[in-house]
């Protein structure tokens, strides 16, 4: 296998495919990326067996073939070569990477050990607006759990409905729910968020295609594909968690609230909640940590409801506020022990359900 391409393009396809490569894999071969040169195109594949990223690049082909090269080392080597044309030549167990003088000779990994990644069994496929889709994923992803002990909660649930796609994630303390109106797809399944986090950098593009099979989801663009194994199991029935109506409503400036929670969190750290004293005219924020001190402040806002004190985890609250894309936010509450609902004042496409902390 021998190719030539521009350094930056080559470094880019290698680095993006390498995003699926994990240093924690017990299989040494998974530290490598598979490079296949056929018909004028280089295809680079990286995988950890759950997430597989394929990237492609039109290259000058001097000799077709295939090789497996160490992912991180090869992509860093290419990136650090002088600007200009770079060539990769694999032969007799070695891969030579050269460009404008410097030459790396790296040992090839055994291509026979590289796993056969089957093309997923997919149906349909829908085109979505890339940036809007990735934004929606990042909005719900904040609520996905990172605790592998409960794999179901580490995923984002895709639910295809008649005139929209719904995305949901929850770690059981909070829940993020996003509707993508007009996105008609038959995509339904539970996708690990750790894979979705890679989408933007790996294959992000103005147009993305989403396809779901029985066992895999495949996201593709002109920049490559990301294939991920779906999480098996039943996602909690979350629709029942949203109360039918909320009696009390606070409408406030998102920026003011976010800044105030940020100040409170200096004192609170993670485990101490910020208290919201809700009253006509606004909200009194306060936080007290016995061994440190306290912080209080008042935010002018519209509040309709009985006076009430409710407390939230500062991180979860600021995650939700950060995810909302509007100037004003609405916090709906019913009871200091029932979930509060945070959303933008104008749109209900994104809803963030947040459990309070017992005082």
């Amino acid at each position, binding site marked *: 296998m021998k190719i030539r391409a521009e350094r930056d393009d080559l470094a880019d396809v290698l680095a993006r495919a390498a995003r699926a490569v994990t240093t924690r894999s*017990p299989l040494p071969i998974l530290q490598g990326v598979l490079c296949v040169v056929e018909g004028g195109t280089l295809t680079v594949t990286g995988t950890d067996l759950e997430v597989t990223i394929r990237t492609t690049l039109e290259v000058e082909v001097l000799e077709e073939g295939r090789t497996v090269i160490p992912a991180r080392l090869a992509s860093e080597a290419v990136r650090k070569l002088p600007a200009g044309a770079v060539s990769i030549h694999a032969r007799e167990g070695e891969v030579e990477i050269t460009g404008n003088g410097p030459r790396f000779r790296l040992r090839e990994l055994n291509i026979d050990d590289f796993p056969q990644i089957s093309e997923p069994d997919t149906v349909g496929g829908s085109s979505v607006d890339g940036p809007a889709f990735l934004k929606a994923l990042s909005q719900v992803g904040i609520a996905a759990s990172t605790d592998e*002990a409960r794999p179901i909660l580490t995923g984002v649930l895709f639910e295809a409905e008649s005139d929209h796609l719904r995305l949901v994630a*929850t770690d*059981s*303390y*909070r*829940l993020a729910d996003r509707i993508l109106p007009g996105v008609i797809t038959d995509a339904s399944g539970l996708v690990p968020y750790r894979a979705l986090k890679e989408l933007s950098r790996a294959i992000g593009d103005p147009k993305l295609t989403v396809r779901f099979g029985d066992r895999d989801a495949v996201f593709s663009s002109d920049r490559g594909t990301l294939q991920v194994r779906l999480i098996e199991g039943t996602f*909690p029935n*979350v629709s029942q*968690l949203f109360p039918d109506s909320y009696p009390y409503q606070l409408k406030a400036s998102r920026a003011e609230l976010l800044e105030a929670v940020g100040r409170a969190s200096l004192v609170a750290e993670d485990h101490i*909640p910020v208290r919201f004293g809700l009253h006509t005219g606004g909200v009194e924020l306060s936080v007290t940590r016995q061994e440190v001190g306290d912080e209080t402040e008042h935010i002018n806002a519209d509040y309709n409801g009985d006076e009430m004190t409710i407390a939230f*985890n500062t991180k979860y609250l600021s995650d939700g506020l950060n995810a909302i894309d509007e100037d004003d936010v609405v916090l709906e509450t019913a009871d200091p*022990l029932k*979930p509060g609902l945070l959303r933008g004042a104008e749109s209900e496409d994104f809803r963030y*359900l947040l*459990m*309070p*902390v*017992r*005082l």
Partner: protein
Amino acid sequence: MRLVVADCTVEYAGRLSAHLPLATRLVMVKADGCVAIHADGGAYKPLNWMNAPNHLTEHEGSWVVTNAKGETLTIVFETIHFETAHDLGEDPGLQKDGVEAELQKLLAERTEEIEDGLELIRREYPTPIGPVDLLCRDREGTTVAIEIKRRGEIDGVEQLTRYLEFLNRDARLAPVRGLFVAQEIKPQAKVLASDREIGWVEVDYELLKGIESPALRLF
């Protein structure tokens, strides 16, 4: 329990011979007859010892301990600095760490927290090498041996492996599969368990105990 702190020499004669030169040591004679000679270091292992049953003969300035195999331990006292005897009474035995014992109790009552459909056969099911924490039957009728630890480490997997080996020799129980349960299981222990086809489950002790956390959950 009789304790003697003394300058002494010790001779052992039996399968081999061993000599402890003159030095200050602690000689312990336990109620069951075991004799142990300790230096002032090391957690548990004596310099020399003789298990019960044996026979201790006290001479002027020396003791001779003999067992049925004809082995002898001769202690010659130069100076006795301290001597005492105290009846310790019956020992209640080694108690498991409180959390571990509590975990076993809670999980025995709620085996579904370990795996759906598990039914308890018995707690502390005896095997020739010690009792396995829980013996259960799964939904398919297969016997399941469960070892419970507070922290799941490699030695816990090894222990369960040994139990499984014995349990699988019992035709009434075999095949017996293993489940390793802990609050937190080390990655190496997970790998070893999986490699031996032993399942593992991490459980939330506080949740099992129903301890109310101030952080409320949606479900």
